[in-house]
């Protein structure tokens, strides 16, 4: 039970619950205590020591991040001594850091750089003692540069606690302490699911996406290539932040304009295939529901979740929708349908995806995703890489006149755009499943029960002619475990899952909080971006996937029906079982539809 205690923060009397830490109280009262390893989204690791404050009567300062307030506490957050300690601490951290700021991906976003600058630290106070170690570039998604690591432990925290992936740990001791994968085999040979949450929370440039910017520029600048680009739903609500626009600005049309100025030959939209995914996945769901299937259907859009499932829950692989992700559906259609419609040799098409995601880089290179006869998606850029591209091209994004995308694979409904927020796929699917079962549209398309940032959301939707459909939505893989463990338990004990349909997104908040999103990607900004997607949904003329005219056209002209043999061939996939120690494929657990 929380008690209220009296404390004095820099002389100011406050009454606060004793469950709060000093730094939480300070933040709430707008007293800034310098910090480095502390992040409000994560449990404190208490490693850096920068947040020390003086407690009157205590011989040594205490860490504000993990010291709870107690009755009568008199706190001093700044003093000559504290300033000196903090400076020396940061000087010590810099002395064991690869200080290559101008060329670092985290330049201007780096929390160490900002702190050092704010504290007025002398970078030459101590000799640099860094022993350079090789950079881990084994992963298709994430680069780990240990030379820039300050061993704050946030990545371990987010990987082990938030995501329960357990790819990272501390290794060795003393000055050799570093963050490593098991047996130092590198990220590619770890259970890492490529979600990139470590890159989001890394305070420096030690963890970042594996950049494919150069390859994309090469393709754009190659006159023989036809470069087609797609952008994920969540991109349009996070781009603006980087260009001085308010958090949650909805900017799809500036985005199209920027892409065109950069030189992409065809500017399309992933939201189109999000709608298409609903048609495929929704049909799959309705078929299962009608057949009275006891095992649930689980969404398959999130590549971090898919690798996680293959690693930790391969026994549930048959429950996961066989539908490819919207990105991969787009990729395969670009080199088949689009090529055919526009008379372009698919060999000359370079398909680029701009994603909020690092795991998409891994997905694009899955060997099974080559149903077009080519690698379906050639390059994946994260939002951060795209921002760098806009900056390199010198585009004034905030003031860019809006433009429309190219036609054919770019029209989208409100259902497609909310894919970017947790619960969005579920909501979009319910909107269409209702129609597919009853032949009628839902009266109110907004399903509030699956919205918001609660870790696991449950809802029950009545579909006339079928009854109640129980659904669950989980975001963040630790929450996914909670749902999956109950599914496992239900199947083992009662022979049925507690839910018919489940949405799982690897990243907390869904794609708006993806591992490739702009720096400053905390829970608060994820919430704001998610709301922006719902705002866009409300503003759109079409809000249901089955009403998307371009989707209807692709069925009419090319695919036939949802789940038709051609649709199953091009738009559906299968899954593997992976080793929990090194993430490598150890077997195939489901098969391609015949």
């Amino acid at each position, binding site marked *: 039970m929380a008690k209220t205690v009296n404390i004095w923060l820099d002389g100011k009397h406050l009454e606060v619950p004793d469950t709060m830490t000093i730094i939480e109280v300070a933040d709430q009262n707008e007293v800034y205590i310098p910090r480095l390893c502390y992040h409000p989204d994560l449990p*404190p690791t*208490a*490693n*850096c*020591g*920068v947040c*020390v404050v003086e407690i009157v009567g205590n011989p*040594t*300062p205490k*860490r504000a991040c*993990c*010291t*709870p307030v107690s009755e009568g506490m008199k706190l001093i957050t700044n003093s000559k*001594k504290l300033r*000196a*300690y903090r400076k*020396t*601490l940061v000087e*010590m*951290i810099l*002395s*064991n850091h690869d200080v290559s700021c101008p060329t670092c991906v985290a330049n201007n976003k780096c929390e160490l750089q900002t702190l050092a600058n704010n504290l007025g630290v002398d970078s030459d106070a*101590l*000799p640099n*003692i860094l022993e350079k170690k090789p950079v881990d570039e084994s992963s298709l998604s994430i680069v780990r540069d240990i030379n820039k690591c*300050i*061993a704050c432990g946030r990545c371990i925290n987010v990987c082990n606690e938030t995501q329960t992936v357990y790819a990272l*740990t*501390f290794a*060795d*001791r*003393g*000055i*050799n*302490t570093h963050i490593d994968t098991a047996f130092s085999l590198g990220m590619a040979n770890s259970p890492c699911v490529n979600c990139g949450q470590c890159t989001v929370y890394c305070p420096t440039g030690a963890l970042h996406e594996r950049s494919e910017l150069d390859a994309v520029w090469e393709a754009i600048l190659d006159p023989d290539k036809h470069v087609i680009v797609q952008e994920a739903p969540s991109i349009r609500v996070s781009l603006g932040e980087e260009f001085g626009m308010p958090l949650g600005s909805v900017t799809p049309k500036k985005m199209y304009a920027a892409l065109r100025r950069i030189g992409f030959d065809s500017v399309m939209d992933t939201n189109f295939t999000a709608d298409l995914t609903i048609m495929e996945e929704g049909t799959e769901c309705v078929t299962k529901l009608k057949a009275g299937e006891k095992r649930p259907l689980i969404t398959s859009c999130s590549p971090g979740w898919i690798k996680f499932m293959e690693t930790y829950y391969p026994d549930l692989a048959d429950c996961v929708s066989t539908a490819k992700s919207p990105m991969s559906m787009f990729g395969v259609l670009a080199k088949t349908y689009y090529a055919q419609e526009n008379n372009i040799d698919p060999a000359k098409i370079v398909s680029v995806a701009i994603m909020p995601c690092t795991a998409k880089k891994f997905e694009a290179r899955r060997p099974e995703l080559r149903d077009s006869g080519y690698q379906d998606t050639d390059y994946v850029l994260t939002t951060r890489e795209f921002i760098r591209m806009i900056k390199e091209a010198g585009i004034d994004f905030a003031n860019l006149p809006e433009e429309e995308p190219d036609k054919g694979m770019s029209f989208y409904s409100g259902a497609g755009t909310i894919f970017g927020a947790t619960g969005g796929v579920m909501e979009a699917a319910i909107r269409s499943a209702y129609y597919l079962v009853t032949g009628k549209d839902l009266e109110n398309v907004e399903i509030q029960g699956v919205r918001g940032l609660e870790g696991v959301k449950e809802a029950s939707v009545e579909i006339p002619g079928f009854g109640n459909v129980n659904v669950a939505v989980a975001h963040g893989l630790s929450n996914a475990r909670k749902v999956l463990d109950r599914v496992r338990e239900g199947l083992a004990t009662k022979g049925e899952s507690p839910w018919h349909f489940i949405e799982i997104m690897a990243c907390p908040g869904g794609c708006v909080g993806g591992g490739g999103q702009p720096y400053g990607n905390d829970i608060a900004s994820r919430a704001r971006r998610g709301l922006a997607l719902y705002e866009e949904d409300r503003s759109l003329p079409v809000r249901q996937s089955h009403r998307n005219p371009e989707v209807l056209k692709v069925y009419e002209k090319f695919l036939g029906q949802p789940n038709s043999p051609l649709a199953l061939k091009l738009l559906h996939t299968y899954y593997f079982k992976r080793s929990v120690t090194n993430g490598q494929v150890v077997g195939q657990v489901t098969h391609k539809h015949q």
Partner: protein
Amino acid sequence: MKFYRSHILVGISEASLLAGAEEFIKELRKELAKYDLQEEINVLETGPLGFFGKGICLTVYPENITYQDVKIEDIPELVEEHFLKGRPVKRLMLDTTSKYKPRLNYENRIVLRNSGVIDPENIEEYIGVGGYEAWEKAFTQMKPEEIVKEVKESGLRGRGGAGFPTGVKWSFTAPLQVPQKYVVVNADEGEPGTFKDRLIMEGDPHQLLEGVMICARAVGATKAYIYIRGEYKLCIERLRKAIAQAYEYGLLGKNIFDSGFDLDIDIKIGAGAYVCGEETALIESLEGNRGNPRWKPPFPGVEGLWKAPTVVNNVETLANVPFIIKNGAEAFKAHGTPQSTGTKVYTILGDVTYPGLCEVDMGTPLRTIINEYAGGMKKGFRFKAALVGGAAGVLLPERLLDVNMDFANLNEYAAVLGSGAILVLNEHQSIVDLLWSILRFFRHESCGKCSACRNGCQQLYELITKIKKGEGTMEDVDLMLTIADTMFATSFCALGQSPVMPVRSAIENFGDEFQEITKR
């Protein structure tokens, strides 16, 4: 029972085993058999004899003659002269020619009173000298709160370094109503130059077990772990035997002597990290995790091993408990000073005549310990400095030797009792070299969790290396102080707070050496 004319007690410790004690005993028995003395002279293996010289040491009763550094080659002479003819071999007897005669302080011993006297591998010998009487009293005559009260009253303070009052520590855990509590014995003795716990465990393992049992009874713990340093092979072996014997005698297990009280004791072997001597890092290690410290609060007494309330006590601390329970707090308080009661076991090493361990009353002046108990400086050497409290201790020059070895007085000298290690240096030793070796140790042992200790230890090591090479300046010396102070203020645990002690005391008390070496 058989009667013997004489008993030869052979001190078995890691050191004597290294010197070939096992082979020695075999040869000694063979030689005695040659003269058909095996029925008259008994050869006994005991724990370490205490404060003596190198190699294999023997004590012969009832003559009470002690031999040191005896070699296998000496056996024929020893047996023929002493045991056959009754003429003790003077040249092997403990050296009494130094300025100070060593004081064999048996009269003041609490923790070591049985060490070197009984066979540590035999529970009956321990019972024979009054062992497990305190246990019996605690189990049959005292309520748990009375045990806590008695220990509180005794004024016993933790002997691991921090000196926290033991009874107070227990009183945090005892009243908590939870299904599981633990007692953890911190036997991960890792402070350089310290080996008191090893000798306590080697010499009298049952005394420690008795202490653990009483503590478990007092706080309501049903499971105890002894987290022991992996290198302490003999301790581990002897403790295992002792635990097995205790089970056999019904002192451990379920429903002990129908008291309704259960207790199991297990041994966990440490993997050699200094930081695991820090109680929360030790708990992490016990749980199977990387040995990194945890933030306090919550303190282990409330939330420790597997989140259950856990009392973590040092070996020496618990070894004092049977005496307190058996003889009462007053008897314990008869030793030491009012604020620092009881005795303290020290390990003295370096350039003294008799390096080894001694147990003396708290508050004994450092000068007395060095000059009287350790026999003063080795012949031909002059005193320069004493490093008191291990690597995390303080370097004291001659003028500060009058400090009394108790918590309060040491504090006045800005010194600490620490682990009870006293390293004595002669006038030829370099303080800079010593500091270099201390800082190399810390650099190696920093767990790397917090940036202050991780980077600070390395920076200190680099700076002292530079100074040692004669390439440093007084600015570097000042920088060392700045870093050490910052580490003290901002390190996560006590390890990172430690280097400031040797660094500051070395620079303050032996500043001229730094002046000199940086001038070169």
